[in-house]
């Protein structure tokens, strides 16, 4: 009996098990405290779609062997640039998704280029990717702070009325804010279902899945799984690592655009600084490790992680009205899970 429990535990993975238990616990607590479930379900679904693509960006990075992409802010910056330029050029007609589609298209060349350059960099520092990635991300974000002030944006909704540079938060009410969330949205028993958002997320997952079953996708996966095996099968490992990073950066760029439209604001300056950590934590919770990841890990992980945070929020506020317990909980869970994954990396070989 104990053995079967143990094998079962190993199969699901300790983090996923603990987080699932925690999720069920907060759900039960929510029932006991008679929380408004329609609101909770709407919220979970919204945040699931909002964070999903950012977590999905981890998958090609891990699969290609560069580890969780702690340099996610690079892609985020590209996405933000796309979003800003789309608004600046006033490509915000209804046909263009109020700027949503141009935002993605414009961000692509930035993301591809940035991902390529960064991928080449990562090939020179194999084995220490995670730490360097973190600080590359931090550096880019802090560098772009100067960029947000200096870049010649003129759109009155985006720049400070007095002074120089872009605003810290830019409202998207008049442009693509909530386009996906409201697309084909409907209500079941009062719970809002953001159909467009969910479709877009699952569509992205599907595309990535199709890619992973193509010849290139398989080569990418082998490169990460066992670089020596890949080399012996005539696969150029370094090229695939770069490809993985390009994909990850592109998905991150798309991810932040989806995130901003769902949130209703573009957030600049220091805001993207810690963007990578919840995304990394999500895929790890979903069952990924720093070396192996599947698309399902991103889906399950985001659902559990965001689910806990959403449900715990009102529960916690009922218990301790002051302070943001949910935020503290996020910090603890998120970093504990990353630490756990790090202890599983093994002696750095």
């Amino acid at each position: 009996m104990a053995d079967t429990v143990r094998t079962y535990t190993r199969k699901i993975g300790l983090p996923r098990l603990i987080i699932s238990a925690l999720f069920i616990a907060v759900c039960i607590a929510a029932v006991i405290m008679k929380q408004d479930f329609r609101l909770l379900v709407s919220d979970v679904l919204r945040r699931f779609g909002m964070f999903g693509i950012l977590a999905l960006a981890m998958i090609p990075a891990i699969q290609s062997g560069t580890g969780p992409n702690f340099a996610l802010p690079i892609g985020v910056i590209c996405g933000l640039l796309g979003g800003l330029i789309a608004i600046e050029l006033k490509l915000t007609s209804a046909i263009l998704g109020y700027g949503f589609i141009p935002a993605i298209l414009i961000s692509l060349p930035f993301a591809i280029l940035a991902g390529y350059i960064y991928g080449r960099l990562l090939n020179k520092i194999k084995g220490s990717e995670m730490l360097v990635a973190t600080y590359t991300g931090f550096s880019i974000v802090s560098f772009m702070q100067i960029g947000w002030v200096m870049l010649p944006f003129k759109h009155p909704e985006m720049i400070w009325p007095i002074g120089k540079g872009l605003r810290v938060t830019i409202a998207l009410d008049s442009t693509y804010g909530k386009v996906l969330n409201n697309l084909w949205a409907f209500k079941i028993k009062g719970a809002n279902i953001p159909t467009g958002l969910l479709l877009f997320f699952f569509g992205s997952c599907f595309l990535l899945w199709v890619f992973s079953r193509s010849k290139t996708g398989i080569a990418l996966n082998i490169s990460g799984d066992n670089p020596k095996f890949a080399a012996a099968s005539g696969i150029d490992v370094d090229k695939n690592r770069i490809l993985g990073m390009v994909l990850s950066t592109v998905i991150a760029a798309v991810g932040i655009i989806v995130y901003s439209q769902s949130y209703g604001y573009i957030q600049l300056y220091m805001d993207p600084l810690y963007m990578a950590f919840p995304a990394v934590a999500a895929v790890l919770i979903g069952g990924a490790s720093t070396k192996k990841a599947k698309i399902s890990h991103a889906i399950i992980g985001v659902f559990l992680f965001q689910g806990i945070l959403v449900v715990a929020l009102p529960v916690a506020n009922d218990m301790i009205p002051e302070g943001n317990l949910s935020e503290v909980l996020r910090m603890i869970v998120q970093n504990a899970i990353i630490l756990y994954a790090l202890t599983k990396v093994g002696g750095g070989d």
Partner: protein
Amino acid sequence: MLNNIKQEVKKYYSPSTIKRFMVDSSVPLLFIVVCLLGVYYSKLPAVFIVDTLLERITRNLFLVLALIIPVIAGLGLNFGIVIGAMAGQFAILMVKHFGIGGFPGFMLCIAISTPIAMLFGLMTARLMNKTKGQEMISSMIAGFFANGVYQFILLFLVGTLIPIKNDILVLANGVGVRNTIDLSRNGNLTYSLDNLLKLPLFQVLAAAAVIALLAMVADYHIKKRGKKASSIIQYGFKALVCLAVLVTSIAVLTSKSPVRNVKLPIVTTMVIAGLCIFNSIILKTKLGQDLRTVGQDMHIAKISGINVDRTREIAIIISTIFAAWGQIIFMQNIGTLATYGSHVQIATFSIAAILLGGASVSRATNGQAILGVILFHTLFIVSPKAGNNIFGEAQIGEFFRAFVAYGVIGVALGLHAWRKTMGGRKKKTTVVSE
């Protein structure tokens, strides 16, 4: 004698070694130039710069020096000093609760923080022993995690599980510690170390230079009688530095510039000097040699019978304790504890500072720490003004210094990783100079 010097110049100061020196110290050299430009463009009065800089150096240097021992033990830059800082802040909160101020209050902070920091350090070290090869990112994430726990304790356990009734510390509703705590109220901790003794900086410098010169002459004569005569050039160089300090100090003192009135907190400076001495003395002991051996090659250390894990634990515990003390020194100078913010950035800033001084992941010295702190804080002081004067936007200067902090860490880590992949066994030395 002249021949000796010539030979030595040939041996140690050939064009190739000079070139290597330039490459090795490219980071500090670059930032010395950047700082000088910043000072020039900021157009700030010298007295302001010197005074502020001095305060910032004495405030921050102890924390930066806490980074050195883990580097020697091969653990890299200890991002976990944040955790030590939290231990320091726990102690400060407790002392505030007891309402003890002044120097006794300060010493009580030190006493309380030490066991807490030891425990935190041990836990961090255990984690780092489990994540060999990924120590730095582990210590960084551990810092984030600890911050979560820290907030949980202070925001939600204080007043509920931990019964504390104290209007100054606890929020109005009785649960959670306040966001900012004024250290000068209810037992004054502000400047409790700095104000013990303050003397004019340039008088102290002049006196120190004279003493150093005398000591050097004595030392030279004693060594000369022994077999190994030390390098004449090194003596000459040191003597020149001392002379330069002496002359500058006298020049400042005789001038009417307000700079001559800048005062140095003597006790704080002595505490910092004490840590510098500790860092170099520890290397002369068996423990220090073990730390170096472990830092150079864990495998060899292990088969030679050194308890590698224990040695690494000692390194991190020492560093964490110093970080706690460093944070207390920091806070007594600042005077206001931002309960949830004061510690968050100290690892990033301290590490950026030591890297600016020319340290790397595998090599760090007292000298680099001192130079780095000077450069980093100069940059901090002048960049908003310089940004304003150059770009017409003070923000740009602020953003620039944030970028420098993150960027220099990113570049240092990247270079280290690059050398590790490329060089294989070509490791750099890890010796504290002097």
